[in-house]
């Protein structure tokens, strides 16, 4: 008589095409409400310890793959900064086991595999064991942007695909007209760089020669990109070998059934976590992002405009632990670099979800099955034009993610999980470019340092800290200046530190953001530099702070072109160490600068010369609570450690301090009490909400919008849900047109 285990193993046997697998997966999941129709965890229940042993084997494969393969990398991001991931997925691309790193990129896997299924890759070009497929496309491969490059190795047993080994990382240079890995100016996908749909690039765990040649010809960092490609494949080869051994040990029927139970089990755990942590209901949030393209160029008239991107997310939580994120009302896609496709958008959406609801589970596609997303066709996350650029969705999708994370934080705080809730932000930043040395040697680069980590926001009981987390990789690590100088020959650090006062203020303040000063030395024939980054605080709606705390300050860049830096050095003078000091040195004449520019939005690609300076400041985080409730002792500590300037402390915190003979700051208690009382009194002059609404409504009725805002509203209102909400809030007549 067959055991329970044998009975369940009899189910689902037989060879199927990839497309048939998707059809079955979708149908069974839809009909049953459980992954692949798995309503009972039969294998787990029959022998839970064998089940755990099985999963331990799978997990070991991907963990070991990362620990070995990452050392092949050329990019610090791939090797140690977490900008890489190795995974094992089901035949349909649903995640089973993950290494450390880019967790949320699991959302891209089913997109790429589904594309291969729909396009019948089984037949042409054929999918055989140990083949190599690669993609970095947003539309067909689910990639957030072309810098994120994926390698898929099918694991085929008895003629049927049973799993994929996946490796991915963020490469150094993507081959777009604007050099770097996040091209900031793109009109359409033809300016995104080297973009390729899922394609067969190798067999028997070895890439074809033409594939290496493509990297060399279509990107500016061919050697580095080839090494990263080899890194991805080396890890996949380890996973591929390990899974074959596991199938041999446990048997194919067990493997096929158990992997579905693993996912279904984690789906249930994620739902339990949501029930335990969230309050059912609807959480709404908005964010904005500037894409300043007006008057930049004379070639593409359709892109000659400034854009304000509207990000709108409604997060619904039901009593069963399911969540749905509705992005309807977000901007329509545009002729700029900051669009994305659903897979890439999901990669952002799931950041907060994985951190909060998956960390104590087997991290699988369970989260993707529990939290669903809706991006209406035509919106910035689902363009109705297949040629929309997706060069840098991360520039705005961190704001989208942060909106969701704030929703979660509000719920956590409301439920009393005080140690969990904090002011979320993720204002990453990167400097990128390309050049040609004096002897004609070309090079392209991205300095990933501030993609590696940002400050943590304040909690309701303590301050945040500088460079503490990296929501998108988990492995907070900004790398080493010495290595970035090794990779980028013309940029030398004059400073790499935190920036005093650069945080969201509050009873507890956010961690200080960080700043670097790059000194350009002998750039040779040419050096063009630009910036990729989130800009989550370009408007205050994302990094709002919590419970009255101030939002994080926005990232900014300072460029000083045409300086007397060498003269300053030759005369034994000190050089500026951070972005504010560049401004201050220029202002007081210590540094002579022909052209000093402060960029509060993305600078276009700038030509840099010998002795120019490029400084960035980013990664600050929001505060919690009212700054005038901050314990004076903490404000004094900020002063004495140089984290805050006296003017900030007096103006924002109402703390008056004086310096003693030893230079230590001491509290002036009566003056502080008086100052705080005055601040409270001044607040009573604030405008009543009803009056504000009335005055603003008049402006809306008169259509007092600058062009980018009018464009934004028109785009968002083209989706019925936002149109209803907009008209309802402002009580507009039915014939009102923006």
């Amino acid at each position, binding site marked *: 008589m067959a055991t329970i285990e044998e009975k369940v193993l009899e189910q689902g046997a037989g060879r199927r095409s990839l497309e048939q697998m998707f059809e079955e997966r979708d149908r069974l999941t839809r009909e049953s409400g459980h992954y692949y129709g798995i309503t009972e965890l039969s294998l787990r229940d029959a022998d839970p310890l064998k089940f755990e042993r099985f999963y331990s084997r799978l997990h070991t494969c991907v963990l070991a793959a990362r620990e070995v393969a990452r050392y092949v990398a050329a990019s610090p991001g791939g090797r140690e900064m977490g900008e890489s991931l190795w995974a094992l997925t089901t035949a349909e691309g649903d995640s089973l086991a993950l290494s450390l790193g880019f967790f949320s990129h699991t959302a891209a896997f089913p997109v790429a595999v589904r594309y291969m299924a729909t396009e019948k890759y089984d037949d042409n070009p054929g999918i055989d064991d140990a083949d190599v497929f690669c993609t970095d496309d947003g539309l067909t491969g689910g990639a957030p942007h072309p810098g994120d490059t994926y390698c898929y190795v099918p694991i085929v047993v008895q003629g049927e695909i049973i799993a994929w080994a996946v490796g991915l990382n963020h490469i150094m240079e993507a081959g777009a007209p604007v050099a770097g890995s996040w091209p900031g100016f793109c009109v359409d996908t033809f300016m995104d760089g080297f973009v390729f749909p899922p394609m067969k690039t190798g067999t028997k765990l070895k*890439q074809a020669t033409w594939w290496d040649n493509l990297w060399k010809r279509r990107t500016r960092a061919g*050697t580095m990109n080839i090494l990263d490609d080899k890194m991805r494949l080396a890890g996949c080869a380890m996973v591929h070998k390990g899974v074959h051994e596991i199938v041999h040990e446990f048997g194919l029927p067990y493997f096929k059934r158990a992997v579905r139970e693993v996912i279904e089990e984690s789906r249930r755990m994620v739902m339990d976590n949501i029930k335990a942590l969230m309050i059912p209901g609807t959480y709404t949030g908005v964010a904005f992002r500037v894409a300043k393209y007006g008057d930049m160029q004379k070639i593409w008239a359709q892109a000659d405009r400034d854009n304000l991107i509207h990000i709108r997310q409604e997060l619904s939580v039901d009593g069963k632990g399911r969540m749905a994120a509705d992005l309807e009302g977000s901007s329509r896609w545009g002729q700029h670099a900051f669009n994305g496709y659903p897979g890439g958008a999901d990669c952002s959406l799931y950041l907060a979800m994985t951190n909060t609801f998956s960390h104590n589970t087997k991290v699988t596609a369970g989260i993707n099955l529990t939290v669903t997303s809706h991006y209406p066709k035509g919106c910035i996350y689902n363009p109705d034009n297949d040629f929309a650029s997706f060069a840098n969705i991360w520039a705005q999708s961190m704001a989208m993610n942060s909106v969701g994370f704030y929703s979660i934080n509000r719920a956590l705080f409301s439920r009393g999980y005080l140690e969990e809730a904090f002011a979320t932000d993720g204002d990453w930043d990167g400097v990128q470019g390309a050049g040609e040395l004096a002897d004609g040697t070309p090079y392209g680069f991205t300095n990933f340092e501030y993609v590696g980590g940002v400050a943590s926001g304040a909690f309701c009981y303590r301050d945040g800290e500088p460079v503490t987390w990296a929501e998108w990789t988990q492995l907070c690590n900004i790398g080493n200046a010495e290595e970035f100088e090794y990779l980028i020959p013309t940029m030398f650090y004059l400073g790499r530190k935190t920036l005093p006062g650069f945080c969201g203020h509050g009873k507890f303040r956010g961690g200080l953001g960080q700043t670097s000063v790059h000194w350009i030395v002998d750039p040779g024939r040419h050096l063009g530099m630009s910036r990729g980054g989130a800009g989550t605080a370009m408007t205050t709606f994302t990094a709002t702070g919590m419970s009255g705390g101030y939002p994080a300050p926005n990232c900014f860049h300072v460029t000083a072109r045409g300086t007397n830096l060498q003269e300053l050095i030759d005369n034994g003078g000190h050089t500026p160490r951070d972005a504010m000091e560049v401004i201050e040195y220029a202002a007081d004449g210590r540094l002579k600068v022909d052209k000093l520019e402060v960029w509060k939005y993305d600078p276009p690609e700038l030509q840099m010369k010998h002795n120019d300076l490029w400084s960035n400041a980013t990664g600050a985080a929001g505060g919690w609570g009212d700054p005038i409730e901050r314990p004076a002792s903490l404000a004094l500590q900020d002063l004495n450690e140089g984290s805050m300037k006296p003017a900030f402390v007096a103006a924002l915190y109402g703390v008056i301090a004086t310096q003693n003979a030893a230079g230590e700051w001491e509290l002036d208690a009566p003056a502080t009490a008086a100052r705080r009382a005055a601040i409270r009194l001044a607040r009573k002059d604030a405008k009543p909400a009803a009056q504000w609404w009335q005055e603003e409504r008049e402006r809306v009725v008169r259509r007092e919008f600058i062009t980018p805002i009018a464009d934004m509203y028109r785009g968002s209102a083209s989706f019925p849900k936002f149109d209803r909400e907009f008209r309802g809030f402002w009580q507009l007549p039915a014939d009102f047109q923006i």
Partner: protein
Amino acid sequence: MATQAPTHAAPREFILALDAGGTMTDTILVKGDGSFTIGKSLTNREDEASSYSESVADAALQIGLDSRTVHTNTSVSIYAGTGMLNTILTGTGRKVGLLVTRGFEHITIVEGGLTYLGQTQAEILHQQLHEHTRPLVDPRNVLGVAERICGGSYFSGSHRAPGEELVPLNEDDVRRHTQTLIDRGCEVIGILFINSFIAPKHEHRAKAVAEEVVAKSDRRLPIVCSSDVAPVSRENNRVKSLLFQCFAAELTREALLAVEGAAREDGYNGRLLTLLSYGGAVNVEYQRLYETMVSGPIGGLMGAQIVANKLALRNVVTADMGGTSFDVGLLVDGRLGLRKDADFAGHRLALPMVALDSVGSGAGSAVWIDEYRRLHVGPDSAGAKVGSCFKYDKLTVTDVNVALGYVDPSYFLGGKIALDRDKALKALEETVAKPLGIDVYEAGRGILDVVNTQMRDLALAMMTSKGYDPREFTMICYGGAGPVHMWGFTDGIPFEDVITMPWAAGFSAFGAAGAEYMHRYHRGFVELVPNGMAHDDKQALADRLDAVFRGLEEDARNEMSAEGVDVRHLTFRYGVYARYIGQLESFDTVLDFGHLKRAEDVDRLVDAFEDMYTKVYPVGARFPQAGYSITEVYLQAVAPKPQPDMREYPLSNHEPAAAAFVGERDVYHAGRWVPFKVWQMGELTAGNVVNGPAIIRDPMTTVVVPPGKRIEIDRFLCLHYR
């Protein structure tokens, strides 16, 4: 005190090796015939000299001597202590001031952002809770000095050269800040400048300037350069090494000198040696004493080196199962595997360390089931409370072994501690069997299955991830619980041989006794080996490399001579760290041929790199077309030192003596009750064969031999599991 070095020591009968753990200080007393005995004392963290003396006295007592007699006749005493660990964990080190490259004043606060070190995957994912490790220096005492040196790039030849000065050292900054740090009461000053690993000239000049300032003050504080402590790339790791050295090393030296003083007062006439984290021993005068930070787990690997030499084993994988973890290490061609960055207590150091991989499955690890019926092992551990069968309130792996009959509850530590099997069974029933709805013994079998699989996967991954074939490796199992689980974590792996020994529980201390007297020297070195490199260019490169090696040899001679070593007997081992041009990670490339004298030696270096690389990575990961980059040169200098020798015994019959047979007991093994014969380890002799199902018991451990397996005892009393 005389600075007599080990190489000067006259031959004496005994070797002492002590491993001071958090709870116990173990002594291995090696006698002239190679046999040894074990002594123990409770570790006294405040006065390590006293626990040292007590432990040695205990060992001496075992052979009917007093500690003075032993000390008087000891050729070398090696001590791995806990002082530095305590200093770091309790934050009770010296008050440090740092001079750093201007603009990097916050390096100790930011610490590269590494807030996840030492965490599990679940903890890493849960980023909300990440926090920085407490700095070892008051951030206000980190002051910037204007200077910049070029480190070179992988475009060397097309841009500024490595070592070129970009911004001169501002000596006024150095003077002013040194005075400030003196005024603030700093007890030691460290200097870290960017790219000093390539060119230390600014650091060294700053040190000289700072020393002038110190000399004019009424204070005497040392100035320490990062390029002298850890001359390797990555400033965030280098500054941690510098801080460890400044914060803790001198205090540790004082504690070690106190231990040495106690030994010498008791008749010892040599220098006390201590262990390096990358293997080897040094005396307490060693400059970079922070390198002894993580020395506890490496004793076992050095013990494996002794066994490997004696039994002529080429490749060894070590399996150390203690109370809280299972550690795996490799010995390939007799050499220890190293990793370049050691993580310790939330800090990442630029410190080579013996490569060990661990899982938190030890004999004392707690076993529990979560609300989703998932089994977890650890991280909580019972420590000396053993398990529910003794004084712990949770089920442990030892409980499972007791419940199933593998471990005799009446013979734990030779019967000194009585374990309660009923309590173990009850804990197994309530913790696992009932929640899962399965039979209690099946639950136990399943737990051991999971634990053994985790350990087996770790051992396999350690080898296969480096491209090694287990069939070319012998596994050496030790630690108190190693022989208990040996049958499980070796199951199905086709090792060449599996070995354990009667002294498995004291194997780490045994290994410490066999440590080489060794120093390691590194130097940053940026040079390319492009494809098609001309013969003359190769010759020039070989000359430059040779010059660096000779410089390191000179450093070794000078430093070790100052420690009292007779440098005429030094032997050197050479290596480089190399990579494909464009890669970020450099790989340890051993140069068996020593010096580079001819252009062809550059080709041999490249061949050595390719040979190493292709062992680890698939063919598709090779990229010789890119050319090669050498980033670091290193040298190991080894001085002769008295070594323990494993005693050889005459082989007797396969059949154990009747006195060795203890009895028989039922063990629940592989899903059924099986009668296991029980043998007494101390009564077995060389040449004996013990066929399974059997258990060999010893006061310190238990060897499990399942049905179909056997133990063969060789002439050195090593137990071969076959």
